[in-house]
């Protein structure tokens, strides 16, 4: 089953800014994003690194947070993005 994943960092201001938008989206669309903090949890970091070939071409050649990934389509968006763009990614 497709999973929607958010990779984030505890001390990343972009991630903090996106959290309320993610909450809003989850409520509005009735979906849940799997959230993985990557700087304080090695398993989560390894999981993000395992998607490196998929993520880097879509995210400026690097592993950046926040990154939103659909594990079925491999569609990813990164950084602080407007609500509409996040929604579009999630519901595609």
């Amino acid at each position: 089953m497709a999973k929607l994943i958010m990779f984030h960092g505890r001390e990343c201001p972009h991630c903090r800014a996106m959290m309320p938008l993610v909450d809003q989206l989850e409520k509005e669309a009735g979906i849940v994003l799997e959230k993985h903090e990557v700087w304080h949890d090695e398993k989560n970091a390894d999981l993000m690194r395992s998607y490196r070939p998929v993520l880097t071409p879509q995210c400026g050649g690097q592993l950046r947070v926040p990154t939103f990934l659909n594990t079925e389509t491999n569609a990813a968006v990164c950084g602080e993005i407007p609500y509409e763009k996040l929604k579009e990614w999630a519901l595609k």
Partner: protein
Amino acid sequence: MKKTFWRCFVCNDIHYGIKPPEICPTCKVKNAYVEISASEAKTCLAPVPEKEFTKEDFLRAIETLAEGQEFMINPDRARLETLFEGIFNNERNHGLKYCPCRLICKEFEEDLKIVCPCNFLIHETYKGVDKGECWCGMFIKR
């Protein structure tokens, strides 16, 4: 070209790079650098006492870096505090002051590119952008 170590034969400053400085920044002597091995460099540097480098030291260092440049430190103190927290946690937990808004891929050369401050002048959030900033928003254009 490969970087290597150099030692000033006058004041024993150590330099790492493809070429040494023409004039030693410490003793000002010209053409004073001789190529040395990595182990000699490490031995020369080993007795240098560890000194705590605090967040205040880091702030002072990046403020000095920004002096007279087209960029400055973001005046948003809350944002800076969050970033400093991440940068210092990353140094404690992962060995270097890695960027809190990216992740290391565990390839040393690649990971050096995200040590803070990084070369944000090439970030697409900065280069050619009107109110450009580094990926994390710690440095902003003046």
